[in-house]
C-alpha cells in the first residue's frame, strides 16, 4: 500500500476556448492527514477535485488515488465527496439522502441502516432526519453533506468548501468532525478559501494559483524563514519630516546596526528586490539591507521595521541601537505568518504590491502546448 492517499503528477485541464484551468499540478497527500487546498476563486481547486472524482476528464493526468489510477471508478467506493454548491433532491429527507448516496457507493442496506442515524448524530442532525431537505437551511444541508460523504466509511474524503454558508458554531462542529475522522485514520482533503478554517485543522496545505501549485507543505515548513520581529517605532526627535517622505525613516535606518540602503521611490516593477512592506504589502519600502549579524532588515513608511529572524538575540542588538539613537520603540512583536499572510504574499506581485491575476487563463506565451481533448 502506498503511503500517499493522493499522488498525482502533471494534472492539466484545458477547457474549450483554450482556458487553462490547471497547468500541470503535482500533489501528494499523505494517508491519515488533513490536507488543505487553498486558492482564490477560479484558481482551479474545484477542477482538480472534480478530476479526482471523475466528474471532469483531465487533459493530462498521471498518478494514483488510494493506489488506483486516477479515474478508476472502483476506487471511488472508498472515497467520500462533498461537492461545492451541492444540491440534494428536494423530495428526499436527510436520512434518505444518506441512504441513497450510500447505496450508490455500494454500501449494503444493513450497514446503511445503522450508519445513517450514527452519522446524522455526528453532524447534529438526528432530530431532522425525517424532514425533507427542501426545508433545510444552508448550514443544515452542509452538515448532511458532510455526513453523506462519510456514508461509505471512506479511506479518503474530499470536501469542497465544506463550511460554505455555515455559521460559526456549525464551522466549529465541522472542524471537530474532520478531526474525529482523521483520528480514525481517514485522509481528509479540504478545498477552501476560508484560510483560518484550514489553518486550524490542516496538517499540510497547498496553494493553487493560475492553475499551478504555488507552494505546498506543513504550516511550519511554509513559514520557515519567514518568521520575523516587527518593530513600530517613532523617529528620533529632530529626525523630522512628514511620515512617508522617507526622511524620518532615514533617521531610523541609520540607527539600525547594519548596511541599509534607500529603496528608490520609483523603483521599477521589474526590480528583482522586494519593494513593499511585509507587514502591509501596500506600503512601499523606504530602506532595506542586512544587519551586521546577517539578518535581513526592512524599513517601511510609518516607522515599520522588520527583522527577518526567529532568533531573539539579534533583535536585542537592534533594540539597543535604536534606543541609543533616541528612537522611541512603541512595540516589538515576534511574527509568525498566518496562512492568510502566506496566501497574500503568494498572490501579490512583490514588485508592484498589487494582487496578481490568479485565476484560470489562456495559454501563456512560450508554454508547452497541452494536448486539448
Amino acid at each position, binding site marked *: 500500500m502506498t503511503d500517499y492517499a493522493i499522488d498525482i503528477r502533471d494534472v492539466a485541464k484545458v*477547457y474549450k476556448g483554450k482556458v487553462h484551468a490547471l497547468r500541470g499540478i503535482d500533489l501528494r497527500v499523505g494517508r491519515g492527514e488533513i490536507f488543505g487546498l487553498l486558492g482564490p476563486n477560479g484558481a482551479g481547486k474545484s477542477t482538480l477535485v*472534480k478530476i479526482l*472524482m*471523475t*466528474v*471532469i*476528464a483531465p487533459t493530462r493526468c498521471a498518478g494514483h488515488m488510494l493506489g488506483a489510477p486516477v479515474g478508476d*471508478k*472502483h*476506487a*471511488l*467506493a472508498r*472515497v467520500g*465527496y*462533498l*461537492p461545492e*454548491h*451541492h*444540491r*440534494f*433532491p*428536494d*423530495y*428526499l429527507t436527510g436520512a*434518505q439522502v444518506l*441512504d*441513497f*448516496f450510500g*447505496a*450508490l*457507493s*455500494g*454500501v*449494503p*442496506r444493513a450497514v446503511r441502516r445503522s450508519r445513517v442515524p450514527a452519522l446524522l448524530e455526528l453532524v447534529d442532525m438526528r432530530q431532522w432526519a425525517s424532514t425533507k431537505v427542501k426545508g433545510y437551511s444552508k448550514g443544515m444541508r452542509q452538515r448532511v453533506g458532510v455526513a*453523506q460523504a462519510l456514508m461509505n466509511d471512506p479511506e479518503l474524503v474530499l470536501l469542497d468548501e465544506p463550511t460554505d454558508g455555515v455559521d460559526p458554531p456549525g464551522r466549529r462542529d465541522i472542524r471537530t468532525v474532520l478531526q474525529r475522522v482523521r483520528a480514525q485514520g481517514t485522509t481528509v482533503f479540504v478545498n477552501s478559501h476560508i484560510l483560518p478554517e484550514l489553518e486550524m485543522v490542516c496538517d499540510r496545505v497547498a496553494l493553487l494559483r493560475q492553475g499551478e501549485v504555488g507552494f505546498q507543505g506543513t504550516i511550519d515548513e511554509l513559514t520557515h524563514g519567514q518568521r520575523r520581529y516587527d518593530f513600530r517605532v517613532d523617529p528620533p526627535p529632530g529626525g523630522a519630516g512628514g511620515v512617508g517622505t522617507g526622511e524620518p525613516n532615514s533617521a531610523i535606518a541609520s540607527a539600525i546596526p547594519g548596511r541599509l540602503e534607500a529603496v528608490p521611490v520609483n523603483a521599477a516593477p521589474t526590480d528583482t528586490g522586494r519593494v513593499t512592506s511585509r507587514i502591509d504589502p501596500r506600503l512601499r519600502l523606504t530602506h532595506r539591507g542586512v544587519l551586521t549579524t546577517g539578518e535581513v532588515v526592512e524599513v517601511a513608511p510609518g516607522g515599520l521595521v522588520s527583522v527577518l529572524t526567529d532568533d531573539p538575540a539579534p533583535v536585542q542588538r537592534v533594540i539597543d541601537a535604536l534606543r541609543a539613537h533616541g528612537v522611541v520603540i512603541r512595540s516589538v512583536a515576534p511574527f509568525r505568518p498566518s496562512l492568510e499572510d502566506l496566501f497574500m504574499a503568494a498572490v501579490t506581485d512583490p514588485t508592484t504590491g498589487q494582487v496578481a491575476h490568479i485565476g484560470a487563463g489562456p495559454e501563456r506565451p512560450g508554454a508547452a502546448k497541452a494536448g486539448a481533448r
Partner: protein
Amino acid sequence: MVLTQTRALFLDAYRELNAKRLFWFVLALSGVLVGAFALVSINEEGLTILTWDIPNPVLNTQNLSSESFYKFMFVNLGVKFWLTWGAAILALVSTASIFPDFLAGGAIELTLSKPIGRLRLFFTKYLAGLLFVALQVVVFSLGSFLIIGLKGGAWEFGLFLAVPIVVAFFSYLFCICTLLGVVTRSTIASLILTLLVWFVFSAVGTVQALFEMQKVVSARQVELNRLDIAQREKAIEAVKAGESNNGFAAALAARLSLPDQERKLEQARAALPAAEERAAGWRKWHTRLWAARLVLPKTAETTALLERGLIAKDELQKMLDASQGRAERAGRRGAKPPPEDLADFDPSEKMGRVQEDDPEVQNQLNERKYERSLWWVLGTSFAFEGMVLALAAWMFKRRDF
C-alpha cells in the same frame, strides 16, 4: 454492488414520481376512465350506458362478443386515446425534467463521483424514467382486466400486453426528450421540442397512411377500369358475333347501341392510362415516404399491435363487414366492379371513381395492418431509439460537469 445501486436509482425515481402531483393526477384520471368502462355494456341492439340504451348497428352482440367489445374499448379508448395521447403528454410533462434536473450543477457531481460507470448510470436513469408510464399502464391494465373479467366474463391476460407496448411507444418519445435534455439541460426546451418531434412523427405517419390509402384506391381504380374494359369488349364481341338471338346479347344491344358501346369502350380505354399513371404516381410517392418512415419510430403502428394482439382479425372483419353492410344499405357512392355475368352487365353505365370507403380498399388496408411484421414496427423503431440514446449517452459520457 450493482444491484444495490440499481435498486437505489429505481427507488429514487419512484420517490421523485411520488413527489409529483401530476403522477397522482394522471393515475386518478386513469381510474376514472376505467370506472367509465364499467358503466358501459353491450347487448343485442347496441350499447347501454348505465340504464340508457343506445341502439347501434355495428356495436352490438350480433357482431361482437361482450368480451371483444370491452377489449375494443380498452384498445381504442383506453390505449389509443388515453394512454398514447392524454396520458403520454402528461407523462412527458412529468418526465421531461428528469435529465435536466439530473444534470443540473450541484446534483450531478455527487452522482458521478460514485463507483458507477457513466453509461450504466445513464441507461439506468433512462429506464427509471420509463417507470412513470409503466406504473400508469400497469394500473390502467389491471383496472381494465378486472372490469372485463367481471362484466365481460373473460379474464383476458392479454390486456397486460399494453404494458410493454405503451412503454415502447412512450420510450420513442422519451429517448428524444432525454437527448434534448442532455443537450439543452432545459426542461421547457426539451419538452417543447419533443412535442414538436412527436407532431412530426405523427404527421409523417398520417401522410404515409393517406398515401397508402390513395395507393390502394388508385390501384383498385385501375383494376376496376380493366375489368370494365374487359366486360365491354366481351359485350361488343357478343353483339358482333351475331348472337342477336341470344337473349342477353339482344338485351345488351337494347341497352346501348353498338356504336355507342364502341364509343364507351374507347372512352374507357382512353381513361385507363391516366388511372394507371395516377396509380404509379401514388405508388412512387408512397414508396418514398415509406423509405423515409423506415428510419422513424412507428408510433401508431406500435399501439396498433395491441389491437392485433387482443382482437382477432376475423372479429375485426366482422365489424368491418357490418359497417360496410350499413353503408351499402344507406346507398354507397362510388365505383363497383362490373357484374361478371354479361346478362347483368349494363354498358350504358359508366365506371365511377373508387372511394376511400370501398369495401375492397378497406379490406386491403386492414390486411396490411395485420400483415406488418414485428420487425418493421418494433425493430425499426427500437433501432431509431437506440441511435438517439447512443448519441445522448455518448454526449453524457464525454461531458465535463
